[in-house]
């Protein structure tokens, strides 16, 4: 049985209350950090742990913390990014719903480490129930002396507030989130300056994902070195994976990084295989933005070795044969799913969620959606496929924030790996409206001749 650091007590009745949470060892990290460690020592522990941002980019959290500017007399802020909106990702909702105190505890420790006196948890507005849960948990923590003035008699003051969003995927981008928290439209800012220098209200700010902050708790309890013992290589610790799509047991799983993808999909401890006895056609391993992979490349690297659930292994092979860890939103497609339809669906999502600032993303996402819609509904042309690749290239890397890339990658990767299915939609406009292309060769073992690696 794999080790669980975040979800260990998820099934304990009442774990969402402060009392039960404390009985299970909760708020030890706050006591330890505030009473026995200096803020810099907390940062050092997190650095040692090798924890990488769990929101998608995978940037080392400790490093991010150490970049925070600390000018005299200027407030610093910690903002938790709970604007979970990446299609396929629902781990933060799960964590906040069932163990809200894990996030609150992490926020206190992290705020202490960064010297923040006011911290915000920016929760997407649709998660109103979770906002109420967090507000209740904060009230409990405050009543118990873990928040407010002079926490545990250490002289450290902290106020923690929950901020609802208004419904915009783009606010998951940290600078758009800060704009939104300032009561403005969620237009990402041009960087530099980075939030570590000028973030919320122009003050130095750290923005971290819910899971990253919650992971600070076990890191402080057990030490950064202990944390690195879990995982593989530079992918240390455990990671919450949101599993969805055509799986026997979709849901949120805490895995030790380095778990083989095959085991994650098929073992009974995790997803239990593909639902309804069907076969796996494709996966999106890290949330809708990352490249989609056919079943064979999901389970195995191009050289035939098993692919693992780790930052490095998932991206092995670059975009030619790999994908990304992203936010850990694992979507499985069974043999009867249509890749063209799903690509169109994702494309509509990015079109809908583009903030509209940068012209390539504003206009290009809509263009891609229209072309994909046409192909999916049997009106496509063969030249549309190359057109899509070309438009996606014009968006990628040419926008202020990564939403442009996120919109381009699913389209480009779907065509890279499933071009025959797109061509079939064009060639068989009527048939494609009634049946699906099926699993084709996507699940066949990777042929020796096709082995290509980047190096």
């Amino acid at each position: 049985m794999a080790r669980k650091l975040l979800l260990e007590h998820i099934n304990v009745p009442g774990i969402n209350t402060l009392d039960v949470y404390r009985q299970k060892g909760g708020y030890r990290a706050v006591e330890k950090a505030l009473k026995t460690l200096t803020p810099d020592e907390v940062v050092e522990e997190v650095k040692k742990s090798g924890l990488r941002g769990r929101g998608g980019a995978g940037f080392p959290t400790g490093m991010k913390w150490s970049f925070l500017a600390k000018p005299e007399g200027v407030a610093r802020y910690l903002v938790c990014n709970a604007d979970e909106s990446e299609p396929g990702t629902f781990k933060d909702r799960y964590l906040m719903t069932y163990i809200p105190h894990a996030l609150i505890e992490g926020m206190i420790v992290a705020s202490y480490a960064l010297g923040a006196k006011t911290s915000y948890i920016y929760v997407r507005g649709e998660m109103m129930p979770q906002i109420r849960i967090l507000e209740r948990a904060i009230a409990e923590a405050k009543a118990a002396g873990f928040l407010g003035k002079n926490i545990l008699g250490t002289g450290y003051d902290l106020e923690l507030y929950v901020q609802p969003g208004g419904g915009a995927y783009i606010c998951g981008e940290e600078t758009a989130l800060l704009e939104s928290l300032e009561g403005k439209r969620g237009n990402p800012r041009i960087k530099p300056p980075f939030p570590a220098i000028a973030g919320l209200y122009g003050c130095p700010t750290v923005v971290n994902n819910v899971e990253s902050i919650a992971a600070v708790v076990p890191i402080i309890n057990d030490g950064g070195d202990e944390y690195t013992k879990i995982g593989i290589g530079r992918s240390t610790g455990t990671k919450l994976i949101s599993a969805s799509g055509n799986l026997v047991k979709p849901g949120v799983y805490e895995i030790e990084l380095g778990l083989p993808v095959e085991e994650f999909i098929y073992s009974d401890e995790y997803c239990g295989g593909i639902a309804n006895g069907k076969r796996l056609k494709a996966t999106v391993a890290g949330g809708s933005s990352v490249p989609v992979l056919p079943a064979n490349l999901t389970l195995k690297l191009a050289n035939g070795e098993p692919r693992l659930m780790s930052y490095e292994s998932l991206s092995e092979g670059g975009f030619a044969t790999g994908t990304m860890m992203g936010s850990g939103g694992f979507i499985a497609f069974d043999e009867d799913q249509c890749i063209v339809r799903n690509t169109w669906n994702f494309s509509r999502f990015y079109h809908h969620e583009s903030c509209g600032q940068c012209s390539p993303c504003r206009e290009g996402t809509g263009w891609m959606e229209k072309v994909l819609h046409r192909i999916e509904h049997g009106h496509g042309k063969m030249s549309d496929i190359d057109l899509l690749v070309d438009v996606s290239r014009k968006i990628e890397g040419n926008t202020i924030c990564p939403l442009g890339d996120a919109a381009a990658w699913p389209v480009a990767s779907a065509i890279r790996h499933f071009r025959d299915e797109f061509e079939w939609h064009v060639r068989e406009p009527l048939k494609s409206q009634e049946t699906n292309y099926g699993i084709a060769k996507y699940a066949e073992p990777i042929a020796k001749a096709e082995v290509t690696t980047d190096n």
Partner: protein
Amino acid sequence: MLKVEEQQPVEFSPALITKFDEISSRYPEGKQKSALLPMLHEVQAELGWLSAAAMDKVADYLKIEPIEVYEVASFYSMYFLKPQGKYTLEVCRTGPCCLVGAEKVMDHIEQTLGVKEGEVTADGLFSWRGVECLAACGFGPVLQIGPEYTFYENLDEQKVDTLIAELRKK
């Protein structure tokens, strides 16, 4: 664009104003504009939607220009700039939910309610729309109903029927 003569004046309840005061105390002095998003949620919960007059009052409270409120309210997808049904069923229509039948659920809602996406039923009780990913992909298809955004998971046609029947009785 709205004509000026179409504006209906609105009143905010004292409870709402108290809530405004509490919300704006969460931010440092001079940064009260941060309260805008949560305040708009509160107004929408009380009035059901955001009329121009309501937004003007919010602007007035925060001492900002009305256009700043319109800009924000129209950017985010949760704010209704037109009156809605008493219950607005917001169904997730993004990839993972579609893999497990969200499109069928939406078709069924459309047939059951007899109104198209974005329209309000004649009795004023219901409206529905597809929304983008609600971050509950493992429990799809899902829908939510404001103002508290209560969640309904693992939907099928039968569960939708039950839900609509229950809401009618309320």
